[in-house]
């Protein structure tokens, strides 16, 4: 679809270069002048026989008119449109054709906003959960409080006793030095965090990074089986250390087994045929839903494929795996939105649930959730429950849907009975 986005503008440019009248070109191509006018202004799509005819009249190859259009720009704006249901999504191509400069600016700004929001989420998570930062922040506020209070006393009491004045001056000096030192060590800590951004604090983080970097599609594992698992473990830098290797072997083996049971090509065709409905796909392959969820999440991204996300948690709500789809934010640390069906599914283990979710920003996803009991091989062992939630972007978006967020601090929802704490975006409680 985006390939022909700017074809109309190219036809117009070529016609004008040949000093050919619109009416003459239209007549030669066998269409009305008004229809050609719509095509030239990217308000009607063109392809097939008509494109060949027009290319012939203009003395160019049809591909010269249809290829090379700014596909990325159209893709970018389609992303913007998917996040903003109120915009005219069906006129993206026309917009790109008529205002390419504005389209580029809008796409660029959207990407920047996305980047800034991700940074904000990361920093917020760090500030909330990093004990070193919490302690340093406490020191900073303590020093600032002492300086503020002491300096106010000095300013408000011009006739203060000389001995007190000297003591307070000394206190301000001590506290300002403490402030400087703490600020410096905070800056060093932030610097280290930035350096560590590509590093991994725990084996779980290392595995998450391994999958995120590869967008959850590991080509080597599609047909490689156990041998490929060992090859990755030996070579990937994320699996340094026994703990990371052990957890990694588990995760990669699950991937390899899923791939062996649901081969990529066959699965991909089935997913398309069943419109990414996991229940229909599970029936087609006679497998359980969690396996289908995982397999859908490992499909490589493609322009004609919906955005697919997956999150898995244990009975305590701790997130074990997260594949974040575009348009839906998952918290990196801390607790997620309690309204996610992921958690609700644990109330009825084994009973899959389906609902439509709408983010506060307006993106709409179909959600499929199921909680399952891990198979036990011993009597009277504690229950081991895992809950899975698959997200598939809804195309076309719908108005109805349960409004959910990422985590309370980053959620701008106005009314929410499940809110745990105020949003730093709106200050709402």
């Amino acid at each position, binding site marked *: 679809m985006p390939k022909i986005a700017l074809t109309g503008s190219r036809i117009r440019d070529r016609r004008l270069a040949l000093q050919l009248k619109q009416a003459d070109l239209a007549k030669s191509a066998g269409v009305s002048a008004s229809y050609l006018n719509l095509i030239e202004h990217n308000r009607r799509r063109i392809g097939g026989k008509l494109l060949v005819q027009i290319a012939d009249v203009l003395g160019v190859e049809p591909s010269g008119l249809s290829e090379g259009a700014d596909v990325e720009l159209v893709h970018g704006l389609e992303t913007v449109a998917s996040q903003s249901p109120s915009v005219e999504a069906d006129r993206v191509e026309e917009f790109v054709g008529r205002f390419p400069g504005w389209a580029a600016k809008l796409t660029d700004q959207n990407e920047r906003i996305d980047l800034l929001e991700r940074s904000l989420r990361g920093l917020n998570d760090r500030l909330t959960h990093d004990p070193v930062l919490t302690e340093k*922040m*406490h020191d900073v*506020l*303590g020093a*600032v*409080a*002492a*300086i*503020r*209070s*002491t300096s*106010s*006393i000095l300013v*408000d009491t011009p006739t203060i006793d000389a001995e*007190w004045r000297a*003591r*307070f001056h000394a*206190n301000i000096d*001590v*506290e300002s030095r403490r402030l400087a030192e703490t600020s410096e060590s905070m800056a060093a800590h932030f610097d280290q965090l930035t350096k560590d951004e590509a590093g991994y604090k725990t084996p779980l983080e290392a595995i998450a990074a391994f999958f995120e970097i590869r967008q959850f599609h590991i080509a080597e594992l599609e047909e490689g089986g156990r041998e490929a698992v060992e090859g990755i473990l030996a070579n990937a830098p994320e699996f340094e250390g026994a703990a990371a290797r052990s957890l990694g072997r588990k995760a990669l083996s699950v991937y390899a087994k899923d791939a062996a049971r649901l081969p990529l090509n066959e699965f991909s065709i089935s997913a398309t045929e069943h419109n990414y409905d996991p229940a229909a796909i599970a029936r087609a392959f006679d497998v359980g839903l969690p396996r289908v969820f995982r397999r859908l999440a490992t499909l490589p991204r493609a322009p004609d494929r919906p955005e697919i996300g997956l999150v898995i948690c244990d009975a305590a709500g701790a997130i074990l795996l997260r594949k974040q789809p575009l348009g839906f934010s998952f918290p990196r640390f801390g607790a997620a939105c309690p309204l996610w069906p992921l958690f609700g599914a644990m109330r009825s283990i084994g009973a899959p649930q389906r609902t439509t979710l709408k983010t506060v920003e307006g993106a709409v996803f179909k959600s499929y959730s199921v909680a399952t009991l891990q198979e036990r091989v011993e009597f009277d062992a504690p229950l081991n429950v895992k809950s899975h939630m698959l997200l598939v972007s809804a195309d076309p978006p719908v108005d109805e849907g349960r409004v959910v967020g990422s985590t309370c601090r980053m959620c701008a929802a106005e009314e929410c009975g499940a809110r*745990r*704490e*105020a949003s730093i975006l709106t200050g709402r*409680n």
Partner: protein
Amino acid sequence: MGQSVLLIEDEPNIIEAISFLLERDGWTVRLHTEGQGAVDAVVANDPDVLILDVMLPGGSGFDILRELRQGAARPDLPILMLTARGQTKDRELAEGYGVSSFMTKPFSNSEMLQTVRDLSKGRKPVVSKDAV
């Protein structure tokens, strides 16, 4: 004899500033600088108002607050909680435990002073949510 304030706080320069302000206003200021033994210090000093920090060596201000409110000695003691932890959940926790007033660091001297005066008279202090 004037009224007394017990200040439970571990930052020496904050102690000095608060003590100066309160003593100049006619209060007798007594001091305790750690979490341990804080409840006993309240019982021993029998203050009119308690100013309580949250993060203390050897104990949390929240635990002290809860213990005081649940105990028989001074369950109705006016308590101003002064903290660098200004998060909503901390404020809500303090309110849940029955704090009389809650201020975040850095604080305004005049507002702190007025709050202590109000508390000693049994009045509900008017404190802006994010007083600085």
